[in-house]
């Protein structure tokens, strides 16, 4: 009886110890890769985290209200706007069709390179949705009553 119990306990301890080691190893790897696992950098992080000039990366933040101007370049739709995360902001130019959810005050992720003049030349713009879901009537009511807090 005690022999069987101890064998089970030994197996349990072996499995748990193996899992603990594995968990630790994965945590270390994820910490080491932290910067690479980040899908985009915020405008305020560009100074510290942006790669070498000419290398492409992604920036993410909110489209600044009133900053969007749509134009045409060589007959294709184009846009320029500012992306902000509060402390910092960066100008973005983009030639191409913007996604459905692209709005002022909404989240956006742009892939491209930082030009020497500090303007981010985007080759791809993705809309980032936040975690709030509500019908239009509720959104309008919230805006009207002043309880509206724009998404992050």
């Amino acid at each position, binding site marked *: 009886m005690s022999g069987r119990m101890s064998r089970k306990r030994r197996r349990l301890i072996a499995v748990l110890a193996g899992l603990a080691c594995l968990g630790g190893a994965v945590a270390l790897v994820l910490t080491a890769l932290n910067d690479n*696992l*980040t*899908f985009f950098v915020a405008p305020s992080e560009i100074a510290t985290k942006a790669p070498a000039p000419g290398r492409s990366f992604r920036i993410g933040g909110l489209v600044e209200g009133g900053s969007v101007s749509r134009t045409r370049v060589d007959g294709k739709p184009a846009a320029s706007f500012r992306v902000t995360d509060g402390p910092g902001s960066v100008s973005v130019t983009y030639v191409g069709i913007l996604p459905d959810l692209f709005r002022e005050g909404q989240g956006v992720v742009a892939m491209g390179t930082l030009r020497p003049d500090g303007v981010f030349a985007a080759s791809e713009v*993705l809309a980032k949705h936040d975690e709030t879901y509500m*019908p239009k009537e509720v959104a309008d009511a919230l805006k009207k009553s002043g309880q509206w807090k724009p998404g992050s």
Partner: protein
Amino acid sequence: MAITLHRFANPGQFLRLSGRILPYLAVAGVVLTLVGLGWGLFFAPADYQQGDAVRIIYIHVPAAWLASGGYFGLALCSLLSLVWRHPLADLAAVEIGPVGAGCTALCLATGSLWGRPMWGTWWVWDARLTSMLVLLFLYLGHIALVRAFDSPERGYRAGAILALIGVVDLPVIKFSVEWWNTLHQPASIKFTSAPTVFSGMLWPLLISILGFSLGFAAIVVARLRAAVMERRTRGLLLARAQEAA
């Protein structure tokens, strides 16, 4: 013969008990899934930003929940099998695998179908999407591994070890949207704060999650019953052949 009976005692009890529960499980799963999806598709409001594309979440979120939840069940069965040698745990792990893989694939496919119109892309390699794809490969690896050996016992053992190793992917999936900047939005339903989903959308979503979960359980139980009966048939045929020899 006594040893054989003893070995089947536990699965026999499972067959009796599950046979009684299964009809209720299946009916509840079908009804709640139909109510949740019907409500979500036809009666829930459209989103102020996403329009009607928001209706995809009534499938995407339950599928994502079952992808992770199913894997947790698979890992639990693997632990029971490795440590306590529970006679049903091996079979349960084998039967959960394909169903969980299906849910993971459905989660990825519906996410893609939502992402194309909303984000503007079918796929990005952000931490959430990538860790979910890793989960699909863990499921597929388990499915392949448990069938890769001539002796089923060795296959169960190898599959159980893989399943337990893969458990580290579950917290990565869950917290990827908080640990790193991802394109995928953070969780809307949390245990720690009020949900950020309007109640007229939250109810059909919760019902759909419950319906999918019960349906998942019903399908796994039905497969497990079949597996137990198949194993018993094989055992009896083998015993008969040995008697004849």
